[in-house]
């Protein structure tokens, strides 16, 4: 039995459906991420798990027990709010002690529990400070300590790193992974940052407009996106849609209007589809003055239209005679090199059938 079972939950605000028939199960000890663009309903779903909001339809079960009649204070889940929501009139110690007091943990036991929680987030010695005397990262840690101190069954984290700078975000991500492993509590993590989601999670639910588009492990989400939305949202992706012209063995040929026939490998079991989309990541596309002899299954000529130097890599936007725009990415392995091609250069792009991924419609 899953720790948390969300069954066909729907939440409407007026005419607007914020959560649309969502079902998912979260296991004990799992690092589970809700990933999706702004406004897709992540916070709404989290608030229903915490008990601040109730579903209009469907059920939320914790350890098999329906939570509908359980107010937030009696649910064994704790939230780490995006704004931290530390009590400004209490010290760090006061904040962390608060859930213990509410749970009537004897005073003699509290001290050790508080120290333990502060140690977990590496904030020993800050007991007497007030929230306004802490940095953003430290406040975040206090919020996590406060959430962990009563050993809840589950932690809900709503974009906990969004307000921090890039470097700190990376450091704290690594700490979060370690912390989660250490305490063994299930984390439900909300973010709209795909790289954060891929790096942290055991499983990811990609959400779009109140629905779960795909629920999988990070490598599956990245490598085998099930819908065009997922493919595009998780890292950049070239999407070529069109009717299926031909299917031979494990290779499908899709007739792409502005590009030409694109050949892509498919898994054996996939049903015949009349239409579909080929998703191919920019880094899988080879770009050269001319395609190497005799090799690739797909090659198209084009002209470099734009390029974007990103330090370690350069992204080239190539337009083909048919009008298709294709993104390809080349690593700048040689130090000091910014680009291989100039805007206006004629190039040839190529990739093998195995580089793409077919999404049937």
């Amino acid at each position, binding site marked *: 039995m899953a720790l948390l079972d969300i069954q066909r939950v729907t939440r409407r605000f007026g005419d607007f459906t914020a959560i649309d028939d969502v079902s998912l199960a979260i296991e004990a000890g799992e690092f589970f991420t809700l990933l999706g663009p702004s406004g897709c309903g992540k916070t709404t779903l989290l608030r229903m798990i915490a008990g601040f909001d109730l579903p209009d339809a469907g059920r939320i079960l914790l350890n098999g027990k329906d939570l509908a009649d359980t107010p*937030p*204070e009696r649910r064994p889940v704790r939230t780490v*709010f995006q*704004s931290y*929501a530390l*009590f*400004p*009139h209490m010290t760090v110690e006061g904040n962390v002690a608060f859930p213990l007091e*509410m749970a009537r943990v004897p005073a003699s036991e509290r001290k050790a529990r508080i120290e333990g929680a502060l140690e977990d987030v590496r904030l020993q010695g800050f007991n007497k400070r007030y929230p306004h005397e802490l940095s953003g990262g430290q406040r975040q840690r206090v919020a996590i300590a*406060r959430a962990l101190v009563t050993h809840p069954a589950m932690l809900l984290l709503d974009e906990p790193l969004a307000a921090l700078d890039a470097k700190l975000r990376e450091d704290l991500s690594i700490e979060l992974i370690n912390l989660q492993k250490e305490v063994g509590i299930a984390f439900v993590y909300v973010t709209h940052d795909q790289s954060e989601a891929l790096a942290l999670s055991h499983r990811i639910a990609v959400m779009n407009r109140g629905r779960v588009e795909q629920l999988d492990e990070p490598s599956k989400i990245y490598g085998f996106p099930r819908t065009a939305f997922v493919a595009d949202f998780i890292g950049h992706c070239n999407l070529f849609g069109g009717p299926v012209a031909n299917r031979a063995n494990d290779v499908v040929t899709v007739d792409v209007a502005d590009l030409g026939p694109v050949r892509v490998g498919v898994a054996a079991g996939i049903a015949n589809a009349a239409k579909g989309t080929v998703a191919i990541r920019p880094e899988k596309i080879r770009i050269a003055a001319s395609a190497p002899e005799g090799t690739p299954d797909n090659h198209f000529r084009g002209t470099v239209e734009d390029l974007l130097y990103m330090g370690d890599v350069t992204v080239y936007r190539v337009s083909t005679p048919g009008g298709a725009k294709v993104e390809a990415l080349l690593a700048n392995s040689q130090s000091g090199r910014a680009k291989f091609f100039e805007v206006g250069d004629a190039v040839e792009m190529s990739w093998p059938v195995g580089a793409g991924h077919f999404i049937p419609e």
Partner: protein
Amino acid sequence: MRRRSAWLYAAALCAYAFLYVPLAIVVLYSFNDSRLNAEWVGFTLAWYKTLFADDQMITAAGNSLLIGIVASFVSTVLGTLAGVAMHRYRLRVLPILIVAPIAIPEILTGVSLLIFFVMLNFTLGLGSVALAHIAFCIGFVAIVVRARLAGMDETLTEAARDCGATPSQAFRRVTLPLIMPGVVAGALMAFTLSIDDFVITFFTAGAGTVTLPLQIYSMIKISVTPEVNAVSTLLMLLTLLLIVVAAKISPTLLRTAREP
């Protein structure tokens, strides 16, 4: 530009002079060694001695303090609850109902309360005055408290619930301490309003009951003796002190509540 600000400066100066020169004269002549508020004779504290020996005055001051304390305490409790309700339920009529008494002319409030008390056969006296003061102070407290709540992060209450607090625990441990400056400022405000009030008190006090403003009024009907100056000076000092303290506690106070 320069010229204009000089004009503005002069105009402001005149306005302030108009407000404060009469007050300054009252204060000054409370120390004047003469029965007449006409010319400066010499410095004395005699009028303050007379004041503290005046039994009627002492009784009136005692009544004012008692009413002020009771009215500010009760109106603070009720006004805080009203402020919380206004904030939480966002009903349109509630703020109007609570704030309207502030805008209604005091004389109307006074007359209608008098009629109300008479209708109920309520004996006029300290009790009726206190009730009347409570009624008009609630709105002021509610406004200040609501302003404070509006500035409070809503997620803090949710965080308290999330940490295992029941709604009432969340209110006591998190919401109340955070709005406390507003509550205290509201209480001081209410106390000042109550101590100073003349019109409503006049209508609701009945025959035998006298508060400080009523006593001062009855004295100046005869003649303005420097004793009146002395008691006015003390009253002014107390009011000023309370306003300063209230403004210190809640800097938004002077912007959110009407001047008394």
